[in-house]
């Protein structure tokens, strides 16, 4: 068992780091806020943490500082952005993510430019990453449960009705937006401290697609979907080694398949299966009760006659 862990440690770390990123996509989408800002802040958080750590600041402190920065910046950005709808918000945040990449390439004196940032102190270990991710997931799941979580669901269902129940729509949206920035920065910072190197390509078009895939494949319903999505995106390319050069194509086909046949993601599909099983169970026990009633009725009629 330990051997398997050691062999795949890099993959396990990547999966764990992907989880906050997946949630950074999933959470706003659940509230109807189509924000892709997590990737931009993955880059900002990663590079920020890396640069601070290289300058001598304690890795965890660097990470914490970047998280605070991400929260503030995310909140400020949300003010003009949050009134955008659907795909337009997605486009705007996507454009922002890509601009961050261009800025990184052009500020070589701090970020190492196109060559990348190297030599970031290795500030994490797998147990530490696991711990941080667990705490994050716990916090998010608590958020999902309470009144705030129900508020998010309400926002997704209908803006107008949400307002009538007295929920401040704009504030909630801004909050979710800022949260997605923080989650993205967390993932980026962890990435930087774990793999000690970053490049502008790390957080670009590819990562946006990967993040969207994680959110969709796993299922938007809950953080469990994000975890499933992270596992899928991190591990499937390796599993597809057999396809050789056609790996990307098989991956694409799988994506299309899941999207069409399991539109609620893997987690959603599992939940539907459970529901079907439960209703089958209920049907069976009610059938049994009917049978018993029938036999009783038959016995009564027979004894009567």
């Amino acid at each position, binding site marked *: 068992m330990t051997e398997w862990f050691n062999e795949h440690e890099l993959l396990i770390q990547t999966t764990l780091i992907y989880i906050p990123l997946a949630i950074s996509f999933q959470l706003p989408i659940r509230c109807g806020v189509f924000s892709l800002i997590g990737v931009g802040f993955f880059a900002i958080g990663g590079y920020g943490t890396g640069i601070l750590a290289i300058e001598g600041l304690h890795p965890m402190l660097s990470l914490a500082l970047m998280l605070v920065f991400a929260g503030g910046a995310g909140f400020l950005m949300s003010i003009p952005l949050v009134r955008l709808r659907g795909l337009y918000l997605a486009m705007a945040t996507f454009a922002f993510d890509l601009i961050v990449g261009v800025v990184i390439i052009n500020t070589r004196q701090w970020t190492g430019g196109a060559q990348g940032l190297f030599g970031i102190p290795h500030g994490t270990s797998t147990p530490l990453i696991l711990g941080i991710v667990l705490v994050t997931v716990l916090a998010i799941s608590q958020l999902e449960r309470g009144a705030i979580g129900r508020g998010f669901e309400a926002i*997704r269902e209908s803006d107008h009705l949400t307002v009538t129940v007295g929920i401040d729509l704009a504030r909630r949206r801004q909050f979710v937006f800022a949260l997605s920035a923080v989650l993205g920065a967390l993932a980026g910072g962890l990435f930087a401290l774990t793999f000690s190197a970053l490049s502008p390509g790390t957080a670009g078009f590819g990562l946006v697609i990967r993040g969207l895939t994680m959110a969709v494949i796993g299922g938007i319903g809950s953080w469990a979907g994000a975890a499933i999505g992270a596992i899928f995106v991190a591990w499937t390319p390796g599993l597809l080694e057999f396809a050789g050069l056609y790996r990307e194509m098989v991956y694409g086909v799988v994506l299309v398949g899941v999207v069409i046949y399991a539109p609620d993601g893997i987690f959603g599909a599992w939940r539907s299966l459970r529901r079907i099983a439960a209703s089958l169970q209920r049907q069976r026990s009610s059938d049994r009760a009917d049978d018993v009633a029938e036999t009783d009725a038959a016995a009564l009629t027979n004894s009567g006659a």
Partner: protein
Amino acid sequence: MEQQLLNGMVLASVYTLFALGLTLCWGSLDVLNLAHGAVLMFAAYGAHVVARNVDAPFALLVLVSAAMGGALTLILDLVAFRPIRKRATSKRQEELLTLIAGVGAGSIPLTIAKVQTSDQPFGLTDFRVRVHDIGPLRVSDLQIAVIVVGISLTIGLALWVSRSRTGRVLRALAVDPETCSLMGVNANAVSAGTLFGSGALAGLGGVLLMAYLSGITANTGEHLLLKGFAVIILGGVGSVWGTLVAAVVLAAGETAVVTWTSGTWTNAVSFGLILLIILVRPSGLFGARKAERV
């Protein structure tokens, strides 16, 4: 300087052809086709394969490319987008799933082309153009052709959308599909036609680009996709004239940046435009102003 202008205009033309398909699909059918770039590339690749095996005139290659582009997009819609539209429970889910499906489906032609070309540029080997020296400019027949095609198709499409019955139907579909079906519109036929047309335009742009650049790679489509977004958002989603104007603006901006700076900021032009326009005027230059309650 003038040469740069000419290059910019050719670039603008290619952007226009590519973006026209994208904007019509998004504007009328609410389908944001992320595989559009792969379609352009693969249609051009098809023309390249034909050129390799058959001594075909350029016009035939253009036809092949356009037909392939149209067919590919139709297949894509049948296999991926339509099932999603049928099964999606909400508009948002439909949009999200369409995006992912587009990416996934686009990887199929992308990978095939990549493997077949070993990720090397592919083009038209026996392509020769006549070059004319007009004043300070060196103009090739191809450049003239691309610019003429781009402008004429834009004009043609704009007129068609605004004057013809089918064009009106397309605009009506964008506003309210349900009322359209009540009015006896065959939405499926119109959407199939639009999708084929958008793919054909992409194929056309692809083969012209391939000839102009003397070769494109499997990844060219992806780069174009982002530029395409910038064009349609700046121009206004669904507007044909907007696409042309925006393509010119984008091409001019990028050419200027390349000429006067180190060129690493070139992509920032398109991304910056997207962000700026969405924030300031989401309907773009010529897009329909939609009243959205905040």
